[in-house]
């Protein structure tokens, strides 16, 4: 766009002193700058979580415990799980891409509550600080699930600090959800009706509903853990009159919907990528939109599938199993509709599209193995084995992580104004895909054969799978480092992207890259559907 827009864009450093510059970032209420703050901090947490994972994988190369004690191993996989779930996967896509893009996509100047948005980031950082302190002062050994009564009465690790971290970060999540819901209801540009919204917005709307309805429950459950641990008031520990299975109910009432907090925004990203790189409107737009809402609602009725072996009543187990299979329907609707969108599209295999196609394949494997697990009889055989570990890594890394990377690549030119190196982009997408499968596919096999999760000493016969998995994770790690390098390099050396490098129709591309502080020079007015690509629009 014009040079004036460039001078005024959100990233411009108008501050003259270092402290003024720092202040302009740390006290900003601009959703785009807050998104950048999140981008940096979330990636730092991802690297820390990844480091813990590498240490876990290294330990598992041999069947003996040679790198660390059993106790240390427990702390290491808990560190990995807590950081990845609470500080990367749950906030990841909404706080970075959602924050940056929701106002842009709906033609608004900012989110409804900019200061609340900044507060969310501080809460996230505060929660993260607690969790990191817990790690530095010796770690936690409960697993990311904090199961009682171990966490309340027996563990000698930093349960209180870690739970405080998850608790504080929960408020960040609630406030972000609240902000998004109100923004999407109240601040859409003139003419932007609900069924003209990009599917990214629908997905974030559904996610936000889960965030505000489910997060308070886990907050209270975690608070009760603290109450029992600190004051020995019997809530969950049977020795003092509590009920440990109650904790599992409360925890999974949040944490199953939380897996949809992770995957729904990812699905929103994928819808955008598939549309742009096959240059077609998403097939069955309304179905894809409503399937997000259906997932959000049904997702609240299935939590008991994590409790089949917990002494939950078998009747509850059967009902939960049945409803769990129902959730697969809206997920499948999305996959089928993305595939149908590809059909007769003019597909270009740019880096974001490679990530999107990878997502579809991996999510199918992750989702289908989820259906295996929803069958009580099968689950009793493989629960707490590497089969489950493989299942959730296929959906969380193969799903959310792939979408996060694809989305970062796709909107990088908008966020920074620069293009990254396409050749390196292609290479990294392929390396991630190969490394990912080598890491996690063997885990299905060894899990099915009986390798339990959360043990670092194991029978000889499983070593071959563990070696494959560790080799794969090394490749995967390289696949994550490559983009870090070329994306950072692009900030200085990348060519200028221009307003609309992908020739895409969304509102976010109708302003300069990076956008000016208040996003649009003039209020955009929407007169057409989402994904109105030129060739299609021409013959309508």
């Amino acid at each position: 766009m014009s040079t004036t827009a460039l001078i005024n864009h959100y990233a411009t450093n108008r501050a003259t002193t270092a402290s003024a510059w720092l202040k302009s970032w740390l006290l900003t209420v601009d959703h785009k700058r807050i998104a950048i703050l999140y981008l940096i901090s979330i990636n730092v947490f991802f690297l820390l979580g990844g480091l813990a994972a590498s240490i876990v994988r290294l330990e598992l190369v041999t069947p003996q415990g040679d790198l660390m004690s059993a106790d240390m191993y427990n702390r290491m996989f808990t560190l990995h799980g807590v950081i990845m779930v609470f500080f990367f996967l749950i906030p990841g896509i909404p706080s970075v891409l959602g924050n940056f893009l929701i106002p842009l996509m709906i033609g608004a100047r900012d989110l409804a509550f900019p200061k609340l948005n900044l507060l969310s980031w501080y809460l996230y950082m505060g929660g993260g600080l607690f969790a990191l302190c817990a790690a530095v002062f010796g770690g936690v050994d409960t697993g990311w699930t904090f199961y009682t009564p171990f966490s309340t009465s027996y563990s000698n690790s930093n349960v209180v600090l870690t739970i405080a971290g998850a608790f504080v970060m929960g408020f960040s999540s609630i406030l972000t959800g609240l902000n998004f819901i109100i923004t999407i209801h109240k601040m859409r540009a003139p003419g932007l009706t609900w069924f003209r919204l990009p599917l990214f917005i629908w997905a974030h709307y559904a996610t936000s509903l889960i965030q505000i309805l489910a997060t308070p429950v886990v907050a209270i459950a975690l608070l009760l853990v603290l109450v029992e641990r600190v004051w020995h008031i019997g809530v969950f520990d049977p020795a003092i009159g509590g009920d440990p299975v109650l904790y599992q109910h409360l925890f999974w009432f949040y944490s199953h919907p939380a897996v949809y907090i992770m995957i729904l925004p990812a699905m929103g990203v994928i819808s955008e990528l598939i549309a742009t790189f096959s240059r077609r409107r998403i097939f069955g737009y309304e179905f894809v939109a409503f399937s997000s809402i259906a997932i959000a609602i049904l997702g609240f009725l299935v939590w008991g599938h994590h409790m089949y072996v917990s002494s939950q009543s078998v009747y509850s187990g059967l009902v939960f199993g049945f409803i769990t299979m129902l959730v697969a329907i809206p997920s499948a609707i999305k996959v089928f509709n993305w595939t149908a969108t590809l059909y007769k599209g003019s597909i270009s295999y740019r880096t974001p599209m490679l990530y999107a196609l990878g997502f579809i394949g991996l999510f199918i494997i992750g989702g289908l193995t989820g259906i295996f697990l929803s069958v009580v009889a099968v689950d009793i055989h493989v629960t707490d084995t590497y089969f489950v570990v493989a299942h959730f890594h296929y959906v969380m890394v193969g799903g959310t992580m792939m979408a996060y990377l694809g989305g970062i690549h796709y909107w990088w030119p908008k966020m920074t104004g620069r293009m990254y190196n396409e050749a390196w982009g292609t290479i990294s997408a392929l390396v991630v895909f190969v490394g990912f499968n080598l890491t996690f596919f063997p885990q299905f096999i060894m899990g099915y054969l009986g390798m339990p999760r959360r043990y670092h000493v194991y029978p000889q016969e499983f070593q071959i799978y563990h070696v494959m998995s560790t080799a794969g994770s090394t490749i995967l790690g390289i696949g994550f480092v490559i983009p870090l390098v070329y994306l950072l390099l692009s900030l200085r050396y990348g060519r200028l992207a221009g307003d609309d490098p992908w020739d895409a129709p969304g509102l976010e591309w109708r302003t300069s890259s990076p956008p000016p502080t208040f996003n649009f020079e003039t209020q955009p007015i929407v007169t057409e559907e989402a994904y109105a690509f030129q060739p299609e629009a021409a013959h309508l």
Partner: protein
Amino acid sequence: MANAHDTGHQGGHDREGNYGHISVRTYWVVFGALMALMVLTVAAWYTQKHFVHLPEIVAVGIAVSIAIAKTTLIIYFFMHVKVSSKLTQIFAVSAFVWLMILFVIVMGDYMARGWPPAKGPLSQVPVPISAAL
């Protein structure tokens, strides 16, 4: 859809979604009702303790019902749900619908445990191998 809805209410009120006004008189009436319900709570406890001994489930049921009545009054009047937009009302109600999902399903689990008495190969008490041979 929502756009038409917004413009319909512009002008009159400075705050979005706040469509009406609750009179001071209403606040006092609600306050009176809350005080009355509090007296009722204490009275119910007193009756239970000194006169009729109701089964625990009935006693708790009465106490919880009074508490719910109080909560409803506070949310509806003091928290302005009465004069808020339909959308706000839907969100306010949905929180409680979700709470009901949690309670109903969890209680469903508790009530269905050991029902009917466990039978079948997996539920039998394990027999030492020597005895089984």
